[in-house]
């Protein structure tokens, strides 16, 4: 039950030219699950270690419920970090690993045993307490690491790339487990990832960090609908950017004059729309003629490389919709005004 607040947090490593993290500010409300998203080396893990107290910030502050924790030692912060490679202590059994935090808090051994049993039930590994971590699969190891963190009932839980080492079918199982435990216990949780899909499926809110600075902090769907700039849109798989001028609800560009949704900004800018929002066929508005340059079959989807005049447009459509077409054909497409966005 902790409101985490990060203020102008900066880290410059000795001998480095650019800061690893540059004045990051972030409010993480009590009980929320927040993702720090960004490419490798953007300062996400640095941020996490500073929250955990494992790294000293160059400047800035971290507060829990308004109280600065920078002078608290890592063992006294009530923050538990789960590392990407789980770091289960190899010399201890699974049960001893899970009970480690309680042992450090001088909990009665009988009480530790009872709570370890409960915790292992919760992560669905009830019979593995006596095993050594090396005898477990990757997914099982991660669940042990999660149990070891949650058993101490931390105020803040930090997860480093929680889904990235898992197979596709385990990812959703793990996602559901993390979300349900987090909701049940109401622990303010922050996780870092370089994978936008991981961020979107797991988090209540996503903070996108590029080049050591926060770009955008919003609910997951906003990054797709209203990205703040081209870099943000590209990070979330955006492909279509057309320069032009927005004026009185219309956007003039090499695609012609397109109708914009209400409230779009005016002046010079870039029009962006997601490949999956390009529709095949005539529409009520913004209908264009396009030539098919390439068709890439992706199984459940098909990616089209199109040309409208001299402007390249990418579209992702249902394979059935374009069965009749082949490379070089001309077809009409339309861009619903509600899916357009000017940055």
């Amino acid at each position, binding site marked *: 039950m902790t409101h985490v607040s990060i203020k102008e947090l900066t880290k410059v490593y000795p001998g480095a030219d650019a800061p690893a993290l540059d004045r990051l500010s972030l409010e993480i409300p009590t009980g929320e699950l927040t993702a720090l998203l960004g490419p490798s080396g953007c300062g996400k893990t640095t941020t996490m270690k500073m929250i955990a*107290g494992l790294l000293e910030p160059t400047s800035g502050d971290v507060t829990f419920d308004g109280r600065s924790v920078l002078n608290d*030692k*890592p063992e006294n912060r009530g*923050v*538990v970090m789960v590392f990407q490679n789980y*770091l289960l202590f190899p010399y201890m059994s699974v049960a001893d690993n899970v009970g480690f*935090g309680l042992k450090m808090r001088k909990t009665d051994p009988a009480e530790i045993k009872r709570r370890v049993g409960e915790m292992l039930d919760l992560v669905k590994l009830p019979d593995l307490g006596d095993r050594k971590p090396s005898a477990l699969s990757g997914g099982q190891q991660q669940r042990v690491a999660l149990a070891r963190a949650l058993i*101490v009932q931390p105020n803040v839980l930090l997860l480093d790339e929680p889904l990235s080492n898992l197979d596709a079918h385990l990812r959703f199982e793990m996602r559901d487990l993390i979300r349900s435990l987090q909701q049940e216990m109401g622990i303010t949780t922050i996780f870092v990832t370089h994978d936008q899909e991981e961020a979107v499926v797991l988090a209540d809110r996503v903070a996108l960090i590029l080049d050591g600075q926060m770009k955008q902090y919003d609910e997951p769907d906003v990054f797709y609908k209203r990205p703040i700039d081209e870099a943000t849109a590209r990070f979330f798989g955006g492909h279509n950017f057309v320069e032009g001028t927005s004026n009185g609800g219309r956007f003039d560009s090499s695609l012609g004059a397109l109708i914009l949704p209400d409230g779009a900004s005016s002046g010079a800018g870039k029009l962006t729309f997601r490949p999956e929002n390009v529709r095949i066929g005539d529409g009520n508005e913004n209908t264009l003629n396009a030539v098919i340059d390439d068709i890439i079959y992706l199984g459940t989807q098909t990616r089209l490389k199109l040309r409208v005049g001299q402007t390249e447009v990418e579209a992702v459509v249902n394979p059935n919709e374009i069965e009749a077409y082949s490379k070089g054909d001309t077809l009409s497409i339309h861009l619903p005004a509600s899916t357009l966005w000017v940055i």
Partner: protein
Amino acid sequence: MSATRESFGIRSFRFLTGALLITWLVLPLVPLAIWSFAKGWFYPDLLPRNWSMRAWEYAMSDTAGVIDSLWLTIWISVVATVLSIIVGVPAGRALGMYKFRGKEIVELLILAPIIVPGIAVVLGIHSVFISLGLNNTVSGVILVHLIPTLPYMVLVMSGIFANYDPAFEAQARSLGASPLKTFWYVTLPAIRPGIIVGGLFAFLVSWSQYILTLLIGGGRVETLPLLLFNFATAGRNDITGAIGMIYILPGIIILLLTAKHLSGRSGAVGGFGQI
């Protein structure tokens, strides 16, 4: 490849190395053992004509000073080993885990005592120890034993730390362990094989020191090798044999206790690792 049926080559190689080991390491001890029970053993007899416990009785008696010397030698070697561990673990951590300016020079300096003969160094140390009042003292002997024991300890520990992930310590801290508890529950189990092997080396190197003990101890600190030398030069082969038997005992006991950590798969026999 099947492990159940070894080829003839491997079996004969194993037999050969076993035979060589016994010839070189065990056979030389046999005459020593026989001498300790002999009452006169003269050419050309294959075995002594008369047997006696005289040498052993003398060695165990108060007048010979063997038992006192044994305890003194154990004390010196144990303290030297403990000090080597206390200094060698952090030094090995620094050399194995961190890059810093002048690291190569530090590594060379630490290895130097193995390369440079002890007698060349000890003369300088001798004059320093005189001014510090450490000459002819047990403390002085223990300190000077650190010169040859430390390189082995540091070498083994830097190999251990080169393959050590300090993130485990961060994880323990994050779970609520104090720095001391982190060391005890997380670091120590990981580096224990290195401490055992390095400590074994340090103990045996200290145990077998002769020159350094003689020069710094000035003959007043009479460890077992010094006593052994006295009887050997005096031509008392029977007593030399008895003391010799006592002398090799700790080495054998320690070797048996630590054998499993000495195999090639243990991280403790990796050297500096990164150099």
